[in-house]
């Protein structure tokens, strides 16, 4: 009995270990490859550190094409951080309104929100391009920034979280005290929704950071590109001139860092979002 328990324990841990290796090794490869120059990348053993050129790669990365990579990085931060901040403010406000107020056609409007959740952003990219080109917004910052603010899943999540975190008694108490509705929202409710706000923010941050189809459709000016699109164009260049390969590798590594940091430090918020959105 104990031996069979020991065998199953070993078997279970082996399977999980293999799965963990599968998820981690590609990342490890990226880390090791970022220390190699173009020749070493193609020639030598991945584990040999014969010529360690991480510093040189970094210098090349930020000097290539007049430092356009730094520009892409800033753009990504701008689209993702500011976009997710504004977007989650909008979504949380709407979710809260859906939870706390009664108004005509409320559930019909919420049905539209749910339809928005079901329709993935890539399906909307071309229609958005057509509208943007109609009003002359194509190839501008706003062409990417405005659409990414729309986060129906955030509204759905915020409605659930508002129901869970903000008791109706608090609103009643605040009303009795004579506080205005918006005042109550910003001073009391939004504070109670804090953890939920972080969850919505993180989900949107990831989504915008990952965004690829929309910028590809909207933008042609390299100076407006986010990282995803910039690295894609460099990868196309690499097929012709291989000196781009180390740049794509190290550029990808740096592009992953912010999300990994956000994920590891704010782990509990991701989980609460996943469970709130899925289990029920």
């Amino acid at each position, binding site marked *: 009995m104990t031996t069979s328990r020991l065998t199953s324990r070993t078997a279970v841990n082996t399977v*999980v270990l293999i799965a963990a290796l599968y998820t981690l090794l590609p990342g490890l490869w990226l880390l090791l490859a970022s220390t190699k120059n173009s020749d070493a990348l193609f020639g030598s053993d991945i584990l040999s550190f014969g010529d360690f050129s991480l510093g040189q790669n970094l210098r090349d990365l930020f000097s290539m094409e007049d430092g356009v990579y730094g520009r892409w990085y800033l753009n990504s931060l701008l689209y993702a951080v500011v976009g997710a901040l504004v977007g989650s403010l909008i979504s949380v406000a709407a979710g809260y309104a859906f939870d706390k107020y009664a108004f005509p056609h409320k559930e019909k409007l919420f049905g539209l929100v749910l339809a928005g959740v*079901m329709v993935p952003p890539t399906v909307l990219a071309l229609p958005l391009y057509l509208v943007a080109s109609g009003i002359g917004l194509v190839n501008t910052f706003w062409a990417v920034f405005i659409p990414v603010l729309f986060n129906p899943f955030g509204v759905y999540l915020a409605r659930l979280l508002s129901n869970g975190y903000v008791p109706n008694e608090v609103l009643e108490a605040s009303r009795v005290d004579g506080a205005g509705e918006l005042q109550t929202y910003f001073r009391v409710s939004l504070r109670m929704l804090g953890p939920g706000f972080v969850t919505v923010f993180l989900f949107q941050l990831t989504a915008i950071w990952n965004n690829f189809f929309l910028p590809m459709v909207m933008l042609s000016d390299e100076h407006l590109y986010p990282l995803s699109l910039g690295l894609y164009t460099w990868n196309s260049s690499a097929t012709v001139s291989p000196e781009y390969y180390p740049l794509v590798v190290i550029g990808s590594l740096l592009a992953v860092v912010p999300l990994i940091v956000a994920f590891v430090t704010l782990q509990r918020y991701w989980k609460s979002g996943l469970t709130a959105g899925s289990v029920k």
Partner: protein
Amino acid sequence: MSTVLSPEERTGTPPSAVREARPRRAGRRGQLVACATLLAPFTALLVAVFLVPVGYAVYLSLFSEDHTGLGFGGGTTVFTGLRSYLAVLGDPSFRSGFGVIALYCLIFVPAVVVGALALALLLDSGLVRLRRTAQMMLYLPHAVPGIIAAVIWLYLYTPGLSPVIRLFAAADVHIDFLGLHTVLPAIVNIALWSGLGYNMVIFYAALQALPREVIEAARIDGAGGLRTALLVKVPIIRGTVVMVCVFALIGALQLFTEPTLMNQATPMVNSRYAPNMYIYDAAFRRNNYGLASAASVILLIVTCALSYAVTRWTGRKERSPR
């Protein structure tokens, strides 16, 4: 508070006249104003980046610019009805895109659901050491942007760059990850790598929410760990399983990033490989917005129909046994 407008307000009696008699009236009005203020930005977005674009795409798919007389002068917009739709549906390269998606789903959906569910059950079995660390390591790929995951794997598939291919070659096994029959599994693998841990966390959360008494009862009845997992735990969380399947299917229809990157590396992935690539190709390489709009609308309808059908079907199944 089911109806917000009172009869007096609807008939237009000035609110000041009734304020003395009913002090709460002003409060209710204030609530309506606050509610509208909080909803306004989102509603504006809903209209501007969801309803209007979809409506415009439908419009463009039904009309087309007709250039009379050798294309000189302003063209006139002509109602062409379903011509664009017929053109799209009659195009073998569009239909083959859906064929690719179907095949992709056939490999991806079972792989990701079985893999993630198995890992979640193993973590839930209590036999795994360092459970939190394991969970985090498995989840980490989800934090890697899709295009970068695709770049990493593409390089691991590229002869000369890839240590994997070199390793196999040393053992005298030569694999071509970008060949005719391997390129689709290679794309599935990228999606699996990104999605495995994410879906595992969803399953694991559902398993953690199971009532412990049920599991305890199964154990007392003499069911082993494996039997409990497959015959007790999985049936209870089937709602979550179905939901993961739906999102995997919807996600599959959006396939774009990975094959677009592969398109640069191998002739096995052409520029109209998946429906989204077809749309991009129609709009920006062939400059045929009518065609691209029609294809977008078709993809939108298929996506909505699929998610509606599956949720309806499972909704009925969930309700009937009770």
